[in-house]
């Protein structure tokens, strides 16, 4: 529930198979009704586990392990 990463989906490669939607443990991804392609709908809840990327059969998901938050999530110390 901590947004750690930003990821995006290459819509030229994505076939809309829905694997990533099922697999994302944070329930972050949806298939867009119009384009029939996957979208990162709730990116603020992505915790960067990379499972979507690992399991996408088309290699359509890219991740930048850069935080898209202004500050890293609250952790034990800094």
């Amino acid at each position, binding site marked *: *529930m*901590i947004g*750690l*990463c930003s990821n995006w989906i290459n819509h030229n490669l994505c076939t809309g198979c829905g694997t990533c939607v*099922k*697999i*994302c*443990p*944070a*329930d972050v991804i949806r298939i867009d009704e119009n384009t029939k392609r996957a979208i990162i*709908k*709730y990116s*603020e*809840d992505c*915790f*960067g*586990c*990379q*499972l979507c990327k*690992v*399991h996408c059969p088309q290699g359509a998901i890219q991740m930048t*392990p*850069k*935080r898209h938050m202004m500050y*890293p*999530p*609250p*952790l*034990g*110390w*800094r």
Partner: protein
Amino acid sequence: MSTTKTVNCDVLVIGGGVAGCFAAVRARERGLNVVLVDKSYVGYSYATRFATLNFLVFNPNEDEGALNTCLKAVALRGEYINDPEWTEIVLRESWDRYQELASWGADFCRSENGSMFARDVPPFTTVRLGLKGVGPACRERAETIGVKILDRIMITDLLKSGGEVIGAIGFSLDTGDCYVFRAKATVLATGLCSFYMRNTGNGDALAYKAGATITSREFIFVWPWHDPNLDMSLAAARCVYMKFIDAEGLPVKHDPRSEIIDLSLEFLVHEGRAPIYWDLDSATPEDVERMKKRMLSHDGYMGFDPNRGGKIRMFGGAWMLLNSMGGAWLINKKCATEIPGLYAAGDCAGTRTVGAFHIVSGFGLASAAVTGARAGIGAAEYAAKADKPDIDEEELINLKEGIYAPLKRGKGFEPRWVLEIINSIMTPYYIYAVKHGDRLKAALTFIEFIKDHIVPRMYAKDLHELLLVHEIKNIVLNVEIFLRCSLFRTESRGTHYREDYPRRSDPEWLAWTKLRDDGGRMKLWREPIPKKWWPDLSTAYEERYPRRFPGE
């Protein structure tokens, strides 16, 4: 918006990690009608899917002496509050579960030295895992033998009738439909509570709400985090190379007999010696080679270059509450809880396999697999004798209203904001790791307020947020349990450090904490550990407890 679907079965398993899959498979093997439900996707979610380090095994060809050596090592490192009966069961049965998982196609792989078995932390033996881990193979096995799998359904409450658990209720993340499960026996296998992943402590919360006793939740497992600007694959490399330095460049001493860092980083930070760095500059060519091989065993997943040198800044950690330390109290070795019809397995079952310190990571999966298999058998036996469950329709209407209320509320507090607040109260090292009675009480004051005032007023704009609301509700309950157990244990032991009580207190605290709902309040008490499992109290304190706490 929602229609109600009723699902009848003999055994309902909630949670499809390794524990839930084993439970479902075992019950199904006995010819029963088994349903396995998961809020995410069975076999591909949560702790089981992320466990890609190793699986603990004890080879049955080794003699009893070797078993005793392992048992002694767990007792010493777990500081004598493990349950040796469970430790022995997990060790003895780990081999069969490993073989079974391998036959299902789990992703076991060779270690860096080419052997199938590694001895990173003697006397324990582990098998390395590849990137796929054990989860996907578990799902396939469950499907093959006819377990009915229902994905993406969040269970919010257990159903009870006459003091017995008779199933559960929840909602679909896709359609919003309400699902009512009527079962003769129910297995909880919903994993742990952590602040970094979306394991939200649903098992402890469901068990607690159903009146079960929870044990030993004061102990934590810490996992320091690196700069989130770097590729996460370095986490794999870090497992085989653990050199840290403090702000002045002095090496950080942590327990070399453990693969898992104890609280030593937190103690240094408390002394004012942050920032702490992962010191890649001191890596020898052999270290680099080992890191590369470790990362390669992750399907060649090499986002991070271990040869890059430099010092990588560490941030304080994600912590989690693991089964091998606490969870729902079990009344027998078939994983029955005190509530008839309710079984618990995996990270939400309070086996206390490792006691106060998690010595080597393979224990997590092994004890989840072992308890899962046992719970499946226990639940199947119970179901074979149980009558068809009778559901109280009025209770159902109330529960349904509770599930969907946040969607109808339209005002109040946003779930993400609530989570952020809980995180900022709980994640500072001086709350979860370097504890003090005053600070624990302060945190508890806030958490109680959040529980009473904010949680009932969270609202959700869609089904995704409805999931967040229910998860956060459970997190708050878990946090309260953690704080109360931590306050109750007025000593330090393992990963439970109290600055105001920095020594172990024998024999007073050779005991397990227990907690239960008592008319809306949490009632705590102590369960003394049988004397036969005590350490020899005539030996010197320093000998009994080789690890030192600051200020003791």
